[in-house]
């Protein structure tokens, strides 16, 4: 298990590096797919099979297909190399550091380390005992439609707005037949 985690985490890391470092844009996109697939394997190792499948279907499959399509069709040339102290590099680095701090802080919330060096977290809604009793999809669905109903609905509204906006932009270019 630990070995598998190491391999998957390593691949995810290399994929993430590839996104940033690849000279050709299509290779960046493909690296991002590799990264997402490796994350799906990490979900599998955490026994979150449903999340793993959704990760692949939605992100690696649906979203990235469009990215790859557009990149391959518009075929942008190789990116020019960034100079180390350019403004966007500095802002990007600051955002990355801030994000890391927030994620680490949130992950460490409520985790205690026992004397033997094991980690203990808070028992959340996705604890193995609950998931075993109700099944993964059922637990997730129940949480989505009760505890997290408001964020869920707001997200779907956001997606709807994006879809309507895309349709509007696509249609306004073309004269009515």
């Amino acid at each position: 298990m630990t070995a598998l985690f190491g391999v998957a985490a390593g691949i995810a890391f290399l994929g993430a590096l590839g996104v940033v470092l690849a000279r050709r844009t299509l290779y960046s996109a493909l690296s991002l797919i590799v990264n997402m697939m490796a994350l799906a394997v990490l979900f599998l190792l955490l026994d979150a099979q449903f999340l793993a499948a959704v990760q692949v279907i939605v992100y690696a499959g649906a979203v990235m297909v469009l990215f790859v399509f557009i990149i391959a069709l518009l075929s942008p040339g190789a990116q020019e190399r960034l100079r180390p102290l350019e403004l966007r590099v500095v802002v990007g680095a600051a955002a990355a550091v801030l994000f890391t701090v927030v994620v680490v802080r949130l992950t460490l919330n409520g985790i205690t380390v026992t004397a033997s060096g094991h980690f203990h977290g808070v028992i959340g809604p996705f604890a193995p005992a609950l998931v075993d009793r109700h099944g993964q999809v059922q637990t997730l669905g129940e949480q989505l439609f009760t505890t997290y109903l408001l964020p869920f609905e707001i997200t779907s509204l956001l997606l709807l707005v994006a879809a309507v906006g895309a349709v509007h932009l696509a249609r306004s270019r073309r004269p009515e037949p």
Partner: protein
Amino acid sequence: MAGDGRRGVILAIGSGINVPLTLLIALVKGVLLLVVLLTTAAYLVLAERKVSARIQLRIGPNRVGPGGFLQPAADAVKLIFKEAAAPEGRDRLLFELAPGLAAAMALFAFATIPINQTICINGRGGAGPLSAACPGGLALHWDLAHLNIGLLFILAITSIGVYAIFIGGWASNSKYALLGALRSSAQLISYEMAVSFAVIGPVLLSGSLDLERVVGAQHGLWFVFLQPLAFLLYLTAGLAETNRLPFDLPEAEGELGAGYHTEMAGMRFGMYFVGEYVNMVTVAAIATTLFLGGWMAPLFFLPNWLGPIWFAAKVGLLIFVMLWIRWTYPRLRYDRLMQFGWKVLLPLGLANIVVTAVFVALR
């Protein structure tokens, strides 16, 4: 007493070297699955040529081996030793990677399809469709990897398979290949929607994404009788997913050269070819699992322990229908194909989901 002794041994194995045993079983299953799938794909090519010959009142390949039985071997040798010509200006890495990805994803997708009911070795509870029914023993699943979301796994792998086609066409640096790749990825993405909508019917009825449970829920009445529309939708969209006539626009020979694999020669083409035929087997196997009762005997008085045989027979029947359709319907025009997918299959699939959901809720 002898029985008790044996149980002791197996329990010792089960508790002591559990992980190596699981790995060993997975390895054996993986190798078996690979051999069976690749052999099936090879003989499917022969079957295709034989069936098309019969339909066109010809004899078909009959020179290599008795009745043409060794033709697949000859084909394979030819493909392997053919000069692998490759175009100038290709993307070298992706050009080599894409055909392998196509074959690998096709083989990978079969991993969660159960071809028999779970057998409980040496535990209480005996044979049953659920892993929970085997306490203390070794539950032997008849799929390579038992996931409780097996169906979603297959959909996920299929959605990755699109990249093999698109990247292969793009990396070839050829306009025919690129156009073919564009067409086929657009087609695959559109019909993937129809496939996902069609499979929700059986999932709603059985209340599970675990393919073993879906088959178990069909005891006594197969879902093809409760979900005839979903079955038709799945078969239609499945034909499109495997690029077969009447939906074979990605490689419409008269218009696009050979579509996305125009520039692929030798074994590079061979990998795509293998992937395509394995995909046919997978589509037929999923249709069997979701709608035709999987491993269950077709008639109640036939023995259920012949599970894999019944499974193979049903898959073979569906594949024959797919071959038959190829020589019955002409190819669709591209805009008609997209319209059919988005304006006919998708709304029908949606309607089927609504009706099924209402039926399940009121049941």
